[in-house]
């Protein structure tokens, strides 16, 4: 399968047919939604939870409103702490910068903490090919996905769709694990295998959950302990962050942390939260000698200039929207063709890739709003997705959207004209009725060729009654309604008793 957003339709059709995976994922989502809902009660009742989310949204608003200032403040304070800050305009530059650091520090092996931005820029592939280094993902799920060479299934649970048997098979094949289906034995084997890599790695690479501007600190969140290794043992630590991952201070960072973990795994806090303020000092042994932060744009600053699209940068990557999304839960990650599946991908991919390639992402959506109803950072997914649709209709140079063709627009033009002209509207209904009803059997149409055929894949359509509501109103309903209402108003008791009798 060629996993690219352009192939959404064909890949989705294959994935949706995997009924067992679908049912499993829907079940898992149910469990996680329950855990997250329960964790959110720490804030209090429903309205207290709304307040907590609103505060999270406000923090993100503040960060975005002051983004340039906060990034510079962070840079100044990080420099003061001995952290070197590098800036990358795009994926290519970010990869080259890291390659430069690999060469500068004569790095042979790299251990990694789970980082979405590193996947966004394709760092592993680049470094292995261009710098000849060996890279080990430290997060178990990410490690399995790395060995298997597939897209992560979910931003938090990359291998959550895999069965124990599949996982055991991958580990047996790639790292010689004696086959076992016992989870504790699998974990134990990988623990020992990766422990050795952690101890020997020359460079550790991580993402960043929040960069704290006022102190120049990094906050990293995890459960497994790989990030602690990766930031403690190697000589060099490189942290990658996209431009929006900055907040003013720890009060903000810790509030977001609570929302992040509660909406991610349903935990009040994860096993480990690392706060890193710089490389180790002369008398210290653990911690890197040199520490770098690479601030990566990759298309975001252009989105930032748009008053509506800037909100796509609110996301704190909890992944809660994914487990709300009826589409993602049925088709999984593959059709999205990129590392951010589900509603996050729908919102972010179009500005990082382009509007044409990602069209199915923002169109394959029922606009049900499940995603934004739980979002702790105040994202309006639907506004953003419908905005992309509007941009695509008009064409948009900034984000590579060519204007849709006239043929595609003609249907909507006809509809719009019907809306403005009751005569046309009535004529349209008449034509549709004749067209549909000629295929009707026992009151339902069961199939139809042409553009409407999709509807009839799994469902029928009722035939259209000979009289529209409007005609029925004119013919009898209006008069009937008047009489009934008069009776009800004149004799409420009688009407009620009559009806009861």
């Amino acid at each position, binding site marked *: 399968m060629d996993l690219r957003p352009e192939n959404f339709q064909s890949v989705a059709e294959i994935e949706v047919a995997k009924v067992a995976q679908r049912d499993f994922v829907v079940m898992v989502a149910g469990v996680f939604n329950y855990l997250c809902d329960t964790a959110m009660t720490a804030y209090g009742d429903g309205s207290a939870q709304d307040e907590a989310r609103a505060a999270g949204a406000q923090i993100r608003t503040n960060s975005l409103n002051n983004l340039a200032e906060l990034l510079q403040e962070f840079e100044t304070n990080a420099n003061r702490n001995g952290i070197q800050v590098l800036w990358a305009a795009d994926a290519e530059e970010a990869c080259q910068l890291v390659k430069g650091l690999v060469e500068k520090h004569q790095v042979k092996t790299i251990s990694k903490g789970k980082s979405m931005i590193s996947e966004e820029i394709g760092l592993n592939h680049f470094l292995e090919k261009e710098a000849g280094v060996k890279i080990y993902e430290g997060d178990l799920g990410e490690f399995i996905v790395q060995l298997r060479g597939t897209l992560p299934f979910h931003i938090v649970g990359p291998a959550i769709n895999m069965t124990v048997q599949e996982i055991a098979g991958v580990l047996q094949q790639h790292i010689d694990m004696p086959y076992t289906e016992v989870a504790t034995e699998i974990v134990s084997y990988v623990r020992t295998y990766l422990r050795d890599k952690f101890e020997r790695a020359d460079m550790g690479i991580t993402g960043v959950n929040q960069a704290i501007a006022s102190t120049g600190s990094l906050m990293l969140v995890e459960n*497994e302990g790989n990030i602690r290794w990766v930031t403690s043992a190697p000589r060099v630590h490189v942290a990658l962050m996209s431009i929006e991952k900055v907040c003013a201070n720890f009060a903000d960072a810790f509030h977001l942390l609570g929302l992040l973990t509660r909406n991610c795994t349903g935990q009040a806090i994860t096993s480990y939260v690392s706060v890193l303020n710089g490389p180790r000092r002369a008398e*210290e042994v653990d911690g890197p000698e040199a520490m770098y932060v690479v601030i990566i744009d990759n298309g975001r600053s252009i989105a930032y200039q748009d008053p509506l699209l800037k909100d796509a940068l609110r996301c704190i990557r909890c992944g809660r929207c994914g487990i709300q999304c009826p589409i993602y839960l049925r088709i999984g990650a593959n059709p999205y063709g990129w590392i951010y599946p589900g509603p996050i991908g729908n919102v972010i991919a179009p500005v990082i890739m382009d509007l044409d390639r990602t069209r199915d992402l923002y169109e394959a959506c029922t606009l049900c709003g499940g995603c934004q109803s739980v979002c702790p950072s105040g994202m309006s997914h639907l506004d953003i997705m419908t905005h992309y649709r509007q941009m695509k209709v008009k064409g948009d140079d900034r984000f590579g959207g060519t204007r849709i063709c006239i043929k595609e627009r003609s249907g909507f033009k006809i509809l719009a004209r019907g809306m403005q002209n009751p005569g046309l509207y009535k004529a349209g209904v008449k034509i549709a009725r004749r067209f549909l009803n000629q295929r009707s059997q026992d009151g339902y149409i069961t199939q139809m060729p042409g553009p409407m055929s999709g509807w009839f894949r799994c469902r029928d359509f009722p035939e259209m009654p000979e009289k529209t509501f409007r005609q029925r109103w004119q013919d009898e309903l209006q008069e009937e309604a008047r009489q009934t209402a008069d009776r009800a108003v004149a004799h409420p008791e009688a009407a009620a008793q009559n009806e009861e009798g």
Partner: protein
Amino acid sequence: MSSRAMILERLNSATWTKPSSSREVISTPASIVSGDVEMFVSKATAAGAQVEEVGSLDEVQNRLVQIVQEEQLQKIVITDEENLKEIDWEQLSQQTKSQVQSIAQLPGENYRSYVVEAGLGVTGCKYALAETGTVVLEHSHSNERLVSHAPDHYVCIVKRDQILKDRYVLASLFDSGLSSTAWTLVTGVSRTADVALQVVLGMHGPRKVTIFVVG
């Protein structure tokens, strides 16, 4: 133009009007700073730590002897923190026939090779959080990062008065300045659910965490 300049230029030239920053900080009243010990114990226990309330460091020492004997531990690594110095490590070492090394006695290379072989790491902490059962470690040459992470069994000694109410209190302490190179908030045991959603404790960090609440 450098990428830095270009990115900042784009951010600064956004056409939408940025409201003057109004900030709603989630604050905790200054009066409620210290945390409830019972809550700390129950939250830390729920996160997978074994928590014991003890009267004194002497008791901690006795319990450590039992732990070392029960688990037949050979090598123990301890940090160079003040509240650990009241424990008689030499006596413990003799009683249990185990090797106890303080990071103060281990020069660079030796420390690293010792810490990854140690079966037990013992540290104090700077704070603890009742809200989540978290211990807050301030790392430095006297509390190296891997002492609390590399050994299979990690013991943390918490004094009652170190327990804060919640993360917001910690945030205000951090916001008023933090000088150390690294801090870690440890809550329970390292874990993963990546194998078919089964929660397994002891992924890359300690498999076992024991917390002594003293005082």
